[in-house]
C-alpha cells in the first residue's frame, strides 16, 4: 500500500501545484471564474484519485465478477462526489463549467504527461 500512497502523494501534489499556479494566473488575468473553476475541479479530481486508491485493496483478492461489482459501486460513489463541482459550476456563475471539467481531468493529464514525456525521457 505504501507504493499507492507514494503515487497518490506524487500526482496529488503536482496537481495542486499546477491548479494553484494556473488558477492564480487566470485570476490575475481577469478570468476569475476560469481560475476558481479550474482549482475547484482539480481538488475534486484529487479526491477522486485518492478514493480510487482506497478501493484497490477491496478489489484485490476478489473474483472477477466481484471485482466488477465493487468497481461499479466505487464508480457510482465517486461520481456522486465528482458531481458536486459540476453542479456548482452549472448553478453558480463564480465557476466556469469548462474550467471545472478541465480541472476534473487534471490528474489524468498529469499522469499522461509524466509517463509519456518526463519518465520516458529519463529511461
Amino acid at each position, binding site marked *: 500500500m505504501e507504493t499507492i500512497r*507514494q503515487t497518490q502523494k506524487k500526482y496529488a501534489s503536482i496537481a495542486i501545484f499546477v491548479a494553484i499556479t494556473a488558477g492564480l494566473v487566470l485570476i490575475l488575468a481577469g478570468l476569475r471564474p476560469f481560475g476558481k473553476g479550474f482549482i475547484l475541479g482539480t481538488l475534486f479530481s484529487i479526491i477522486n484519485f485518492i478514493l480510487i486508491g482506497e478501493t*484497490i485493496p477491496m478489489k*484485490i483478492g*476478489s473474483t472477477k465478477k466481484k*471485482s466488477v461489482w465493487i*468497481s461499479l459501486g466505487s464508480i*457510482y460513489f465517486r461520481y456522486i462526489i465528482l458531481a458536486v463541482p*459540476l453542479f456548482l459550476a452549472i448553478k453558480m456563475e463564480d465557476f466556469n463549467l469548462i474550467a471545472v471539467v478541465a480541472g476534473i481531468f487534471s490528474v*489524468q493529464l498529469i499522469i499522461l504527461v509524466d509517463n509519456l514525456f518526463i*519518465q520516458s525521457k529519463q529511461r
Partner: protein
Amino acid sequence: MILDIQTWVHVAAFVGAGLSIGLGATGAAVGEGYTAAKANFAISRKPEMAGDIFKTMLVGQAVAESASIFALVIAMILLFTEFSADSCIIIPVLLASGLCMGFGAIGSGIGAGYPAGAACEGMARQPAMSGRLTTNMLIGSAVCQTTSIYALVTSLILIYLDFSVRPLSPTWAAVMGAGFASGIGAIGSGIGEGLVAESACAGIARQPSTAAPVTNMMLLGQAVTETTAIYGLLVSFIMMFKVFPASDSIASSMALLGAGLCMGIGALGPGIGEGITARGAVKWIARNESSSASTIRVMLVGQAVSESTGIYALVISLVLIFVI
C-alpha cells in the same frame, strides 16, 4: 397531472442523464474489474512486485474511467441546465444527447481496462520493463478514449446547437439518429482498440527487445480500428448539420432514424473484428520481429476486409439520408 412541453423537456433531460451515466459507468466498471482481476493473477504470481502492480492498476484505472467522467459531465449538464421549451424538438435532442454519451463511453471503458490488466500481468512476468509497460498502457488507454470523445462532441453539439428553427418532423429522427450513429458506433472501436493495446503490453512483457516495433504496430492497428467510429461520427455530423425539409410523412423520419441505427450497429462488428486482427498481428510481431513486413501486410488486408461491412453500413446510411 399537467403534461405540457416544459414537463416533457424535464422528463427527456432526466431520462437522458440517467442513460448517460448509467450506460457510461458500466463500461468503466467492467474495464476496471478486468484490470483488478488481472492484477490478482499478477500479484499471486509475483507477490514481491505487489507495490508496482498496485501502482500500475491505480494509474491505469484512473485513465480508464475518463470516458465515464465524460458521461457524468453530460448527465450533470442535462440534469441542472434550464432548457427552453419553445419547441418540442428539444425533447428528442436531450434524449439523443444522453443516449449518445452513454453508449459512447461503454467501449472506451471496457477497452481501456484491457491494456491496464495486461500491464499488471506483464509486470509480474518482466519486472524490469515496468516503466515501458506503464507508458505503453497509457498510450493504448488514451487512444481508447478517443471514440468516447467523438460521442462527447456529438452530445455537446446536440445540447448547444439550436434545432428549434427546424421542422419537428423529420428533425426529431435526425437528432436521434445522430445520437445512435455516434454513440453505438463508438462501442466496437473502443473495445477493439483495447484488445490491440492489451496484446502490445503482453508482447512487450514477453519480448522486451521488440518494445518499439510493438508500440508502433499497436498505434497503426488502433488507427485502422478507429475508422468505423469515424464513420459513425461522420453520419451523425451530416444528420445534425443538414437541414431536412419539413415532411408529414413518417417515411422520411424513419429513413433518418434507420440511417443512424444502421451506422451505429454496423460499426460494432468491424470495430471489434479489426481489433482482433490487429491484436494477432501485434502478438506475432512481439514473438517474431523479422516477419514484421508480412505481418503488417496481412493485418492491413485483414482489417480492410473486416472493415468492408462497416463501409456497407455507411453506404446504406448515406442512401437513407440523401436518396430516400
